């Protein structure tokens, strides 16, 4: 009988405790939302120590600007500014009316890319995958060099399409893969492409994740291996063209391709963005995206601020005016000279 009473007591306790927490309620209070954003980033963001950011100091800098009577546009501005202190292109505050994005990671760098020149001179008659211009391929230098432009890893290539593309380069001596202005997308798509350029399983980096809410709470780096595709492989020379706007999954693609024996990178430094982003939300329904899992290179170094190319080449303004893509031309000359 005593056990039955204990059970009954527990049962009543559970049934009474089924409501929502007060903290779970919809709340538009600027202070509550400010504190919620600060806490989410404090407990989840992965580059505080690497970037030497004192997050408490950031709190103290922005907290006095919060006023309970402020309009939501002003709140958005303050929250965006606070989030942008992390200097991370993966930080996005998304509201029904505005979307914040940190862009300084590329705005102060030369573009090294002109879509107009590429499209009007090099992609004339180029085939495409899908319905958009994100994935185009053709042969250059009198059919001697294969060329793939992959403008966004949000777009995927089917394995059969990749087979078809590589077969169309059957008689080419080398290949150029152009990922300039590729702002990222799905790592599955970038891995699918990279897996065509190696003959055996290769270590390409490491990944970590947060194991707790503290800034230094990370798992041991776990190795990332790239495995060769079971379909058509390309083991002749490859040059990957890069610029500062290669970000996130494109940055990861470049990091992996650099480890492959027949591959070099040419152009400008990539933009970085090596933190795998998660999404969370504030009490007023706004969403926040942030980096949470660092992906390291084979030397266990961060690539959050970008990867320098093997061969640095810039695209001068006068070349753009003359309709010439210096990076493509340099890559063609190098590949032709090496494959005589």
């Amino acid at each position, binding site marked *: 009988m005593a056990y039955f009473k204990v059970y009954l007591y527990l049962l009543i306790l559970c049934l009474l405790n*089924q409501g929502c927490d007060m903290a779970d309620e919809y709340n538009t209070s600027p202070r509550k939302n400010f504190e*919620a954003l600060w806490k989410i980033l404090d407990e989840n963001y992965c580059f505080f120590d690497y970037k030497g950011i004192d997050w408490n100091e950031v709190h103290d800098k922005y907290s006095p600007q919060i006023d309970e009577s402020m309009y939501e546009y002003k709140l958005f501005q303050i929250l965006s500014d606070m989030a942008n202190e992390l200097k991370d292109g993966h930080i996005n505050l998304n509201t029904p009316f505005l979307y914040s994005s940190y862009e300084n990671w590329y705005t102060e760098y030369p573009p090294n890319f002109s879509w107009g020149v590429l499209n009007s001179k090099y992609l004339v008659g180029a085939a495409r995958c899908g319905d958009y211009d994100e994935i185009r391929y053709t042969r250059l230098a009198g059919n001697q060099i294969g060329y793939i432009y992959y403008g966004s890893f949000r777009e995927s290539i089917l394995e059969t399409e990749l087979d078809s593309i590589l077969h169309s380069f059957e008689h080419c001596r080398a290949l150029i893969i152009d990922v300039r202005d590729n702002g990222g997308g799905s790592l599955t798509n970038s891995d699918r492409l990279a897996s065509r350029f190696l003959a055996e399983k290769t270590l390409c980096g490491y990944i970590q*994740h947060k194991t707790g809410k503290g800034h230094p709470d990370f798992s041991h780096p*776990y190795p990332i291996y790239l495995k060769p595709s079971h379909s058509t492989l390309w083991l002749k020379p490859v040059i990957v063209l890069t610029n500062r706007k290669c970000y996130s999954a494109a940055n990861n693609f470049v990091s992996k391709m650099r480890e492959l024996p027949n591959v070099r990178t040419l152009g400008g430094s990539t933009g970085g963005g090596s933190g*795998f*982003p998660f999404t969370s*939300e504030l009490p007023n*329904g706004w969403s926040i995206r942030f980096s949470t*899992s660092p992906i390291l290179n084979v030397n266990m170094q961060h690539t959050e601020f970008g990867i320098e190319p093997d061969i640095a080449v810039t695209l001068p303004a006068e070349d753009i005016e003359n309709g010439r893509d210096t990076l493509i031309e340099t890559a063609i000359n190098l590949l032709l000279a090496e494959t005589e």
Partner: protein
Amino acid sequence: MKRITGLLLLCLCLIRLPAQSIEEELPKAMNEGTLLGAGTSHVKDTYLSPFNYSGWGIRILNERMKIIGQGRGNFSRQQIINVDITSTKNPAENVNDFGAFMDYSLGYHYRLEASPAFSILTGASTHLLGGFIYNTRNGNNPLSAKVDIDLGVSLIALWKFRINKLPLTLRYQGELPFAGVFFSPEYGVSYYEMFNIGNLSDVVTFNSFHNKFALKNYLTADIPIHSSILRLGYLNSLYYSDTKNIETRIISNSFIIGWVKEFIPLGSKRIKYKNKVRSSYY
């Protein structure tokens, strides 16, 4: 005096024995109920969001109960299969979580008959749960998978009574897992790291009351209508876990309704004894 008492006891035994023997020979009926449910759901999974999502849930539930073994029929086996679908919204009501869960429990009970009208069945059960919560807005962390295997205790109280000659059976059942293992990823690990890269280390964790509390409460009434039996009631399901800094809370309250049938799975005893069966429930 002792002789008289002994003689009376012997007589009682002699009277009871044939009846018991017939009782033991009666075919054991399977009591099967298939129920549909609908109600409210509250889902919170901090891997997806720090907030509680509220909405509705629907479920389909099949439960089977049967006396097992020989003897006086004090042992019974119960199997419950439950499929639960939920759709919930965040406090700002601009994002959806969809949940789908399937669970199976196998329980064995011992019947304590307090009176012909009131029985308590106590026992143990094993419970398997699989499912997921899907957040429609999150990019790289859109899903939280749930896989649990538990051992638990189970308690059933059955009360038979009549209202205006209408025989009714009320049932309260509580199921409380006390130990098991469950799928529990690390705090910030992505499903990309686990399933694309292959880092599945430490994803299985022992659970007990220190990191998980789950309880299901059933309250049902069986009402005979002509030759059928209507079962209607209320199901309250609580699931709470807190491990590796990830908190999950799934609460649902459903009204359930369905039909019950008693049948003999296999055997010819039904023909011999016509409508007489040994029920684990009634």
